[in-house]
């Protein structure tokens, strides 16, 4: 969780990532931010994210991103 929060704060600071639940739909992060987050996640967590995983639902909150990482680590 902390590792993920540190990535998010590095990519786009100034957002309350712990409490925000609609990062994409509230336009707090855009597709460029999402892709920067994705490349950072791939690096830090050693997972492979496919274009089909890049859907708003997977990036709406820290929990959603964490769930995605866990699923990819299990694959």
């Amino acid at each position, binding site marked *: 969780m902390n590792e993920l929060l540190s990535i998010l704060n*590095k*990519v*786009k*600071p*100034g957002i309350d990532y712990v409490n925000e639940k609609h990062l994409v739909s509230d336009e707090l992060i*855009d*597709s*460029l931010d999402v*892709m*920067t987050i*994705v*490349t*950072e996640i*791939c*690096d830090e967590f050693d997972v492979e*994210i*496919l*274009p*089909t995983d*890049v859907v708003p639902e997977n990036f709406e909150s820290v929990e959603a991103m964490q769930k995605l990482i866990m699923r990819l680590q299990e694959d």
Partner: protein
Amino acid sequence: MSYTSYFYLLFFLGALVILYYLMPLKRRWLVLLGGSYFFYWLASGKLIVFLLITTVSVYLGALAMEREQKAFDSVRKSLEKEERKARKAAMMRRKRHIVLAMVLINVGLLAFLKYYHFFSANVNALGNSLNLGIQLPALKLVMPLGISFYTLSAVGYVIDVYRGQTAADHHFGRLALFLSLFTNITEGPISRYGQLAGQAFEGHRADYRQFTFGAQLILWGLFQKMVLADRAALLVSTVFGSPSDYSGGVVILAMLVYTLQIYADFAGCMDIVRGSGALFGIEITRNFHQPFFSRSIGEFWRRWHMTLGAWFKDYIFYPVTLSKTNMKLGRWAKKHLSPHLGQVMPTAFALFFVWLANGIWHGAAWKYVAYGMYYYVLTLFGLLFKPMIFLFYKKTGIQKDSRPWQFFLILRTFILVNIGMLLFRADSLPVFAGMFVSMFRKTTGHWLELGMDVHDLAVLAAGALLMLVVGILREEGICIRERIASLPIIWRWMIYAGAFCAIVLLGAYGSGYGVVDPLYANF
């Protein structure tokens, strides 16, 4: 056949609506398919064969990929882990070969027909200047109507099947209808299979509300296209036709009026096709969302020609960003340059291809490449200077959400977009450079000698104001069509009659006005 012609509005659309609702529910798609192919044949004649090649190729390609997937799925559970992994990799390789072949056939056709002249002219010029003795022959090539639009829809479909996001369509008629639907074939929107194919194929019952909403959209689209865009064309073609005769305020005015022209033309046509779709109960995807209220270039492209931007995002931006080579580039930059560059490099690399594709999709000329690169550089600035922008807000204490600041951001984006429009409309890069510089000189040319009289200018200004008001209401979440629907019948019909009269009386057609083809129909 133009969407604003009497033939389309009165005869084609009218006849198709009658036939559609006379047909049994389950067979109504046949009317749409027949009508769409008739529409295409009227516009393109024997070039219809290119549409058929695309339809047949992606139909067969998708089925072949499905066969590969099914063959693997049928034995999957009985295999050991290692064997399963190897078989899956082999199956994915075969699917990749099929999807690649589909992309090569269809994009290859588009590239050959659209870019051969540009390519051969540049190769020949280079060959001559270096005395290489290379001379590519001149070919008489004709572009089928809407090839840039239906090719992207077709390629999107096969990639979705490859990714497992869409099942292969076994019904050839449904796929053919999806790729040929008359509402989308000329200027888009670039539809996705999942969004359009099912609802176009499914029979819809007549619905009064849908019908009136559709008619309202058509009227609004006609107003934008015929009253505003076609009238603005007079001034635009005068100034852009002999740019060296004008400077200063006149060039600025021409740039602003061209932006209004292209917006009213493209958005107007989109409203006509969305309205046409609604007459058959089909919801055509939106292509515009008040783009001139955008606060950044990124936001502008999420609101302007939305389906093109979304296509590039899904089929170029995501796969290139996530490719292994690109990820390696990011790691390298992080290690050898800086953590920030390592972060933005993969995105910046992928964006280059997105904007290059965006530029050349619009046309085969260097100015379109420059147009794409213009937006690439602007987007890159935003990416690279993100930490500085964050610091700027922190240090100055400027409230990002305050109204004055939001207005400033909107104005800044509007100016940048207008410069892009000047580049888009100018005949060539040197002409653009000349016009851009001339904006800062003393004004030459009189605003009443630019092809429009006071009446034309007044109508244009009033129309632009009306578009602005409609945009503001939409931004506020007010659905104007709902409001009109809730009015007493007398008011409702007065509005319809008023809109109809405005188009008939103020439309830029007849003596003194030229026929202006939809600007996006030639792409």
